[in-house]
């Protein structure tokens, strides 16, 4: 499909982005395949490939289709084996994920996967190899359960062919459908008509088959055929976003699958259940175009399905209320819950196919769904995909709006005027802009889960490569962060984790010698602290050798002179200097001295900071502190001489005028201020920033107590100007990082206020005092 119209293009793009999401979401599960009792995980992965296979078939992307087909076969075998898989197999599955990701992103550009044929052949060979490996050791005990590989493949191929041909119709429809107004973002009326007619046809076939099967229950060809028919129906419905129908078809498919695998015997009950399902789908289809289908019917149907299954397996009714929680689409803020029933029927678990707009709910909730679930057509509409560039634009505009709002309401022209009505409207305007800002902000917030999941994979790969045993402990992945910030944090995090494995965690012999556990532990945590998010990477490895760093830094000419006075913190900061690397040998993982400086640069770009703590021999902790939002904060404006500064309001605890006797001065000239039971160092902003204040007399200005981490200081300024929402702007790359300043903001009068970075200001003041 080199020449495609816009709708098809959009559909392909949606397919690509959903498929990529699904790969990302499910990748972490691969790791669990090496565990005992992994059925559930195997099923999840199976579903990924299965869905991809179906959709790629629909889009005539046969390269993806073939690869996913092979992968599905592999997973199917694993599913039946239900035993832990070797690292080798897991690596292969990972490589399939990578391959598909690569392929999909290329599809995103070229809209076709044809150019990847050759690579796909290699991939398929690798997967086949894996299939052999998985199969052979256990062939004798397994071949009772399922057909031999070639037969199996043949059967599947046949299935896929049929699937393709049934999809070919859809494909034609696509090409034909000229316009796209109405029903859904991409489902045109015409497309829907085509779907309906093909669905009716499929249902008719299935119905006929079932009636024959009732009298001839062992006709396995017919069973397979029925399975395929329902399978196609499920695929089409899923594609059309009709999740209810898909749901029912899925259940039917599961039953038929069990029948096909000789786990269930066809009898009258089963046939009647399936027939009533067909009826229910039909009803739904009829209801589709003119009116919305009743959702109550769904719960009834699903309940029936359960009953049937329970009835046919009276001894193993064990109905697991297993809740699999899938974060399928991280881009959407709102998630749609659709019903999904998960049941375990021994020995083989059923296939439940996920489409990327679903989230599972417990079966017991189904009763409520009649009221709760929205009709299918609107279901697909509940979350929409929006290009991030659009959101960014919106965000910028909101930023501008806030700036202008403050400029208008604080306009110097209004000074001294008595304007009650204006003030009332201005207050309302202010309220609305704030709300708008919050909403806009929340659109971009998403949990760190995806990022952390990627790190799981990274740690696995790197530790295998380095031949080190590492456990990654993750917590706080539900912490939400601005999407753009998450993207920026990814790289630094990769570097830090690589470093932790490469330089941190010691080789096995060394660990054992030191009496440490065989497995190194790296913990990756995230949490909120004030208006910051902390991402903490902690390892129990070798720790940082202060002397080694100092030596290296001297060699590199980064520092000179007496280094005894440097605190550990200062020394550890040296590793972020460009061109600094202590690794004796350069590995392909890390050690070329690029990396840590990138970490600091990227984090500073986000107005964040990196702290390193380390105990030699016991491990290191890297803490990334990142402001919650990049763009906007509540600020207190203060003035010193002609300059105005903004303090993050969250860091300000109180302010007051000094009275006599509150200040003492040490012999070094350090001023301290007594406030209730605390003694706080006084920090003269004019001194630190080298500016001329109105008055040097502490009693004439104002004291503002600010805190950062666990430190409190009394900041001396001429006056407090007011409070304002600050749209944070960078100081320009040309100026670079300025100590004590995070950025600047445009003030109501068009002037510029510098935004103070409290933590680094305190640091700066400590240095000034020492000198």
């Amino acid at each position, binding site marked *: 499909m080199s020449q495609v119209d816009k709708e098809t293009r959009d559909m392909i793009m949606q397919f690509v982005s959903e498929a990529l999401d699904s790969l990302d979401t499910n990748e972490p599960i691969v790791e669990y395949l090496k565990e005992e009792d992994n059925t559930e995980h195997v099923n999840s992965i199976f579903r990924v490939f299965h869905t991809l296979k179906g959709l790629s078939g629909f889009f005539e992307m046969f390269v993806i289709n073939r690869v996913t087909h092979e992968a599905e076969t592999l997973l199917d075998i694993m599913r039946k084996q239900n035993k832990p898989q070797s690292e080798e197999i897991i690596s292969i599955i990972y490589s399939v994920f990578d391959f598909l990701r690569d392929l999909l992103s290329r599809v995103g550009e070229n809209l076709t996967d044809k150019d990847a044929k050759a690579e796909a052949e290699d991939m398929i060979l690798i997967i086949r190899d894996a299939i052999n490996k998985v199969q052979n050791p256990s062939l004798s005990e397994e071949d009772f359960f399922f057909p031999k590989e070639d037969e199996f493949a043949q059967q599947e191929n046949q299935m896929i062919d049929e699937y393709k041909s049934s999809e070919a119709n859809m494909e034609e429809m696509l090409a034909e459908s000229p316009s796209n107004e109405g029903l859904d973002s991409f489902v045109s009326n015409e497309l829907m008509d085509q779907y309906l007619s093909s669905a009716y046809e499929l249902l008719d076939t299935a119905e006929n088959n079932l009636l024959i099967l009732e009298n001839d229950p062992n006709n396995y060809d017919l069973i397979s055929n029925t399975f395929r028919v329902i399978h196609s129906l499920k695929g089409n419905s899923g594609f059309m976003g009709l999740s209810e129908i898909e749901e029912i078809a899925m259940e039917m498919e599961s039953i038929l699958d069990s029948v096909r695998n000789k786990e269930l015997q066809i009898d009258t009950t089963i046939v009647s259940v399936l027939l009533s399902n067909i009826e229910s789908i039909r009803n739904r289809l009829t209801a589709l175009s003119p009116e919305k289908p009743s959702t109550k019917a769904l719960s009834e149907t699903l309940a029936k399905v359960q009953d049937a299954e329970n009835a046919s397996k009276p001894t193993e009714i064990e109905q697991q209320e297993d809740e699999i929680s899938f974060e399928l689409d991280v881009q959407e803020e709102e998630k749609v819950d659709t019903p999904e029933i998960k049941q375990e029927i021994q020995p083989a678990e059923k296939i439940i196919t996920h489409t990327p707009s679903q989230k599972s709910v417990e079966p017991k909730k189904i009763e409520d769904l009649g009221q709760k679930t929205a009709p299918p057509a609107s279901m697909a509409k509940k979350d929409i995909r929006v290009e991030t560039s659009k959101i960014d634009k919106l965000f910028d505009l909101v930023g501008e709006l806030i700036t202008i709002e403050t400029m208008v309401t604080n306009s110097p022209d209004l000074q001294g005027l008595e304007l009650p009505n204006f003030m009332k409207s201005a207050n309302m305007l202010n309220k609305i802009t704030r709300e708008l800002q919050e909403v806009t902000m929340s659109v971009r917030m998403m949990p760190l889960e995806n990022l952390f999941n990627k790190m799981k994979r990274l740690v696995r790969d790197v530790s295998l490569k380095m031949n080190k045993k590492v456990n990654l402990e993750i917590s706080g992945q539900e912490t939400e962060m601005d999407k753009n910030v998450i993207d920026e944090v990814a790289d630094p995090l990769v570097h830090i984790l690589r470093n932790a494995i490469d330089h941190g965690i010691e080789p096995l012999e060394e660990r054992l010698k030191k009496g440490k556990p065989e497995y190194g532990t790296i913990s990756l945590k995230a949490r909120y602290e004030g208006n910051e998010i902390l991402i903490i990477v902690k390892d129990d490895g070798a720790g940082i050798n202060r002397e080694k760093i100092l030596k290296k830094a001297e060699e590199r000419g980064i520092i000179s002179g007496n280094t005894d006075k440097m605190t550990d913190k200062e020394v550890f900061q040296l590793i972020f200097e460009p061109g600094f690397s202590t690794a004796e040998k350069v590995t392909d993982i890390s050690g070329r001295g690029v990396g840590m400086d990138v970490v600091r640069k990227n984090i500073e770009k986000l107005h964040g900071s990196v702290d390193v703590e380390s105990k030699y021999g016991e491990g290191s902790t890297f803490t990334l502190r990142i402001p919650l939002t990049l763009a906007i904060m509540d600020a207190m404006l203060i003035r010193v001489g002609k300059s105005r500064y903004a303090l993050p309001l969250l860091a300000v605890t109180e302010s007051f005028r000094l009275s006599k006797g509150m200040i003492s001065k040490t012999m070094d000239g350090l001023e301290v201020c007594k406030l209730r039971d605390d003694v706080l160092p006084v920090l003269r902003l004019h001194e630190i920033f080298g500016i001329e204040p109105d008055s040097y007399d502490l009693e004439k200005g104002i004291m503002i107590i600010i805190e950062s981490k666990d430190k409190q200081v009394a900041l001396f300024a001429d006056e407090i100007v007011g409070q304002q929402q600050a749209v944070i702007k960078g100081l320009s*790359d040309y100026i670079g990082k300025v100590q004590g*300043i995070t950025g*600047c903001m445009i003030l109501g009068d068009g002037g510029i206020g510098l935004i103070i970075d409290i933590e680094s200001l305190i640091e700066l003041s400590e240095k000034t005092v020492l000198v």
Partner: protein
Amino acid sequence: MIQSDDLYEIDELGTEEDFENTLQDRYLTFRIGGEQYAFEIEYVTEIIGIQNITPVPNIKPFIKGIINLRGIIYPVVCVRKRFNLPEIPYNDRTCIIIVNVNQSGIGLIVDEVAEVLKILPESISPPPQTNKGSHSKFIKGMGRVGDKIKIILDIQKLLFETEEHNYE
């Protein structure tokens, strides 16, 4: 001060048949002290009168601070200070030339903007080969226009070259 008519002239250059060719060999000349300096017009995005500059603490001394130009923040460099010349009070001839170099928008404070000139490569002599004053490293060449000399600056070096002792 440069008035909008002068700006228009710069604009107009761009509307001629071939933009690239028009910018070729065109230089913006400006005055600092008694000397005329020039750099390639292609870097120039705008020329404005002197603005209220917000000083930023603890930055390189030749960066005077930042300005807000229609909501965009630009750092401004004092070319006098960069040349180690004594600073003079700003007057109504003082201009800020906004340039775009290495994707950074930067303002340059100059005593006065003169004109846009065409200086062909053959009338540019190499910079004087002396070691007198480290600031000659900013010079790209000496342009001869009539009987006058325009010192052509290497704007990259002017803005981005850092002295070794800067990293302390």
